[in-house]
């Protein structure tokens, strides 16, 4: 563990001898917090979460306590809790560590959360590609049931709560909360229009529903333990608690690291914690929050004025690692998946790769994302297969500009932001590619000589 790391969620994970069975968990003080939480009133727990300021770890960073406060308790309908374990954002691999290595932490966090929002039924929607994770969770739930931590009349308190594991079938869109709800209901995961279908009022089976990320729910356990105010002291204001960052790409020590909010800079993470780049390579670009976020160029400078009115001028390496620290760059920390690219990366090919993903994962419900994402993919596939045209550079931007803000869910942004940012920040590279390819083609007029066979 690095000196600067502060492991709360990952505390026991990867420690020698720490298994994912309930006995190990109980040896480490497991379910003690749940027992204590059961003695408190649900609204007290909700207040603690609100006071903690914990922001959702799924990607949007919306304050979890506020999300809970939107719950429509007056409807008289049952309230549901759903754990979003459909971790699919490329570059993100934090939730799977928790699920595979410390499932009881998630279950305890969920039980506390379910109790707090008075949900008697909770679901874990787990990514289809995590079959072992689903099995581990199923077993953990059975273990917890055998000790009466969940099920009917938990520990004699009269509170009953059931958790079901539901496996996805392999679609990125199921990570979008309303898409997830539709999928959980057994339908195609078409995200719902908002308004009117806000999950806190009209969620699962049109009942009030809270969908929270795995890491967020684990945090609830620790908030319940230390109290909201105490938790809020960790990290920077507005960026409370710790965050798990998943670093991948061209660094020597990729992996997952947990830090207090704002405890270090992006440069420190890359060079100190992750051991820097491979020998002889230079940093070219960083995606700070999963592949859908806007890319940052290594030599960019980020200027502006913060909320307190202080001017700042940051290099990429100076960016502070938390929600607000990354946001000054114009990009977002998203799901915490930091992808590092060195100077061997061809940006056109990299973008073609990203765009192929979003075209494949677009659900096809609404027009801009459905048609736009595939169009972008087709252009980029052609460009990376020797058939780039000079006009493609502006076309990419123009097509991408027609998507974000106009779709039902955030996949529109996810498909467009990479294209917009890669083209804006590495425009020379795109143009050079088009010019080189045009010169290399036999017809000499820069047109497309032979249609690329697209898959």
């Amino acid at each position: 563990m690095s000196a600067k790391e502060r492991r709360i969620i990952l505390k026991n994970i990867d420690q020698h001898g720490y298994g994912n069975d309930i006995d190990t968990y109980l040896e480490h003080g497991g379910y003690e917090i749940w027992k204590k939480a059961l003695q408190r009133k649900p609204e007290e727990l909700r207040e603690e979460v609100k006071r903690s300021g914990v922001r959702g770890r799924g990607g949007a960073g919306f304050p979890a306590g506020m999300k809970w406060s939107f719950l429509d308790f007056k409807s008289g309908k049952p309230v549901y809790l759903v754990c979003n374990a459909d971790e699919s954002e490329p570059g993100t691999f934090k939730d799977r560590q928790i699920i595979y290595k410390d499932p009881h932490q998630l279950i305890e966090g969920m039980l506390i959360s379910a109790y707090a929002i008075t949900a008697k039924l909770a679901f874990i929607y787990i990514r289809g590609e995590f079959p072992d994770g689903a099995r581990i969770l199923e077993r953990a739930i059975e273990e917890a049931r055998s000790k009466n931590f969940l099920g009917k009349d938990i520990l004699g308190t009269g509170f009953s709560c059931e958790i079901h594991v539901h496996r996805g079938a392999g679609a990125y869109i199921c990570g979008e909360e309303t898409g997830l709800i539709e999928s959980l209901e057994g339908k195609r995961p078409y995200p719902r229009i908002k308004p009117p279908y806000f999950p806190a009022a009209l969620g699962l089976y049109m009942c009030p529903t809270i969908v929270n990320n795995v890491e967020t729910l684990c945090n609830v356990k620790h908030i319940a333990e230390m109290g909201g105010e105490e938790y809020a002291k960790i990290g920077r204001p507005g960026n409370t608690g710790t965050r798990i960052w998943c670093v991948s790409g061209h660094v020597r020590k990729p992996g997952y690291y947990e830090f207090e909010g704002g405890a270090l800079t992006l440069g420190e993470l890359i060079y100190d914690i992750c051991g820097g780049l491979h020998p002889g390579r230079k940093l070219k670009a960083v995606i700070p929050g999963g592949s859908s976020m806007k890319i940052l160029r290594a030599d960019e400078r980020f200027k502006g004025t913060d909320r307190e009115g202080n001017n700042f001028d940051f290099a990429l390496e100076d960016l502070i690692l938390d929600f607000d620290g990354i946001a000054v760059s114009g990009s977002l920390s998203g799901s915490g998946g930091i992808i590092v690219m060195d100077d061997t990366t061809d940006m056109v090919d990299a973008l073609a790769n990203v765009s192929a993903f979003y075209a494949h994962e677009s659900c096809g419900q609404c027009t801009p994302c459905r048609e736009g994402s595939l169009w972008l993919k087709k252009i980029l596939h052609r460009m990376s297969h020797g058939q780039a045209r000079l006009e493609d550079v502006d076309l990419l931007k123009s097509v991408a500009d027609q998507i974000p803000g106009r779709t039902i869910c955030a996949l529109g942004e996810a498909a467009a932001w990479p294209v917009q940012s890669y083209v804006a920040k590495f425009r020379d590279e795109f143009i050079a590619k088009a010019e080189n390819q045009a010169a290399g083609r036999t017809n000499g007029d820069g047109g497309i000589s032979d249609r690329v066979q697209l898959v």
Partner: protein
Amino acid sequence: MNDDKKQELITVYVDDREVRVPPGTNMIEAAAKAGIEVPHYCYHPKLSVAGNCRMCMVELGMPEKDRATGKPVLDNEGNQKVMWIPKPAIACATKAMPGIRIKTKSDLARSCQEGVMEFLLVNHPLDCPICDQAGECRLQEFATDYGRGYSRFVEEKNVKPKRTLLGPRVMLDDERCILCSRCVRFCQEIADDDVLGFVDRGSYTTLTCYPGKQLENNYSLNTVDICPVGALTSTDFRFKMRPWFLRETHSICTESSVGVNTVVSSREGKIHRITPRRNDEVNDTWMADSGRELYKQVEAKHRLLKAVVDSFETDNVGGAIREAADLLKGERKIAFVGSGRSSVEEQFLFKKLADQAGARLTALVGRVAEGDGLLISADRNPNVRGALVTGLINELPEAELSDLEDAIDKEEIDTVVAYNEDLSAAGISEQQLAKVTIIYVGTHFNETSARARVVLPASTVFEKNGSFINQQYRLQKFLQAVPGRAEGQDDRRILAGMLAEFGVLVSPEIDDVWAEMSETIETFRDIGFMKIPSTGLLLDPPSHLRDLRYPEGGSLHYEPAKEEASVT
């Protein structure tokens, strides 16, 4: 929402035009009320809001309110300040609230509309020259308004299944489909036959039928009507006629007493299709598939085209009318069998003729079958209530004419005038038919016409004007779509001709018939044919007619009176 309570209207603004609508109205409808079209594909007024086409995006402004006091914030000139939301909103899912504003033509709205339009076209085959929808295609229309006129798309288009038969009447071309899900929602929400759905994802999403099932419910062709593009086409109408050549005539479906409002499309005297016409009080925008086939009776093989006297066809219809009238004069014991498929006007004249001829018995042939609860009611006659109001009958008709059978057996009847009804289908046996002299006025050959002394060829509903009274006691009119094929005249002329033989001169003109009806029938007071609006006129029938035990169960926009509900 309580319909009984008269709703307060609120003011909203569309492109700075003020319009007053009930709260909760969606902004597409509000804009329409202001005379502004918000382009859309997936939105349909009679289906749930899907919000997937994104064509109706507009700029949305909310009246600014002070957060603490909730009072409106005003600018220097005392006008309400408007907070314009930077993200565009879909008008179909935006409900009217007091003071809400939308811009449908601003730069942002325009850019959204143009962007969606371009996206919809990139994988569309653009095969308008061979597409049936051309001319009534929303994609074509909005491409003219919001398209860029050329394509920036140089990649390969997606390939999807073409010429897929979804069912016996509906053909699907998946490449043309814009995935608006109107047809899917129709099958779920209206037809209650959830067989359509999407498979695959992204731009490769494909509309298809549930494996092993077919789109074969009796409302399947409505999916063709609501398909905004040429993806779903009717196997019957496909490749038959360009829609811009078609003449459209308002008509009423004769399938049952629901009285579905229709549009009959014809060219040069030939009908090519029947489609529903919107009437929010009767059929919304739907109609049954079976009703759309009825135009085929116009050119049916067994159509009666010439008058027949004593088994000889004759061109002299006037002579045949005289022959028929002569058969009714003198010491005859006559029965008049009318039809619930005749118009109100015809029933009125028929009743008049029956009175003149001194008919001993008048009857109507009832047609009751199971209703489908939607747009086909239990009473398969479109106009039984017309016969009741005109006094042709006083009781609800029976399927079997048992009174007439008895009368023939007892030799109390020796002559029968059958008006477009087959007596043998109504239970009269061959022996009984042989005992009477028959005069048949009708559109098609049948057992009765074959045995008639005089046969007079009449017009189908598509070849004449007239009106029906539906199950709600709604008077609805239909107009002549095509010239009559029959050699004779239209029904009113035949009836007026026979009346003339009795020395009663009536004008067969529809306005004149109505003038007389409004004078003599209380229910029709102050009504004229021209005064019937295109959505019909709700009548106030006398109480003894209201209290009859009608066979209809509930259907769209119709609930039977309580005590009738207990009758099967």
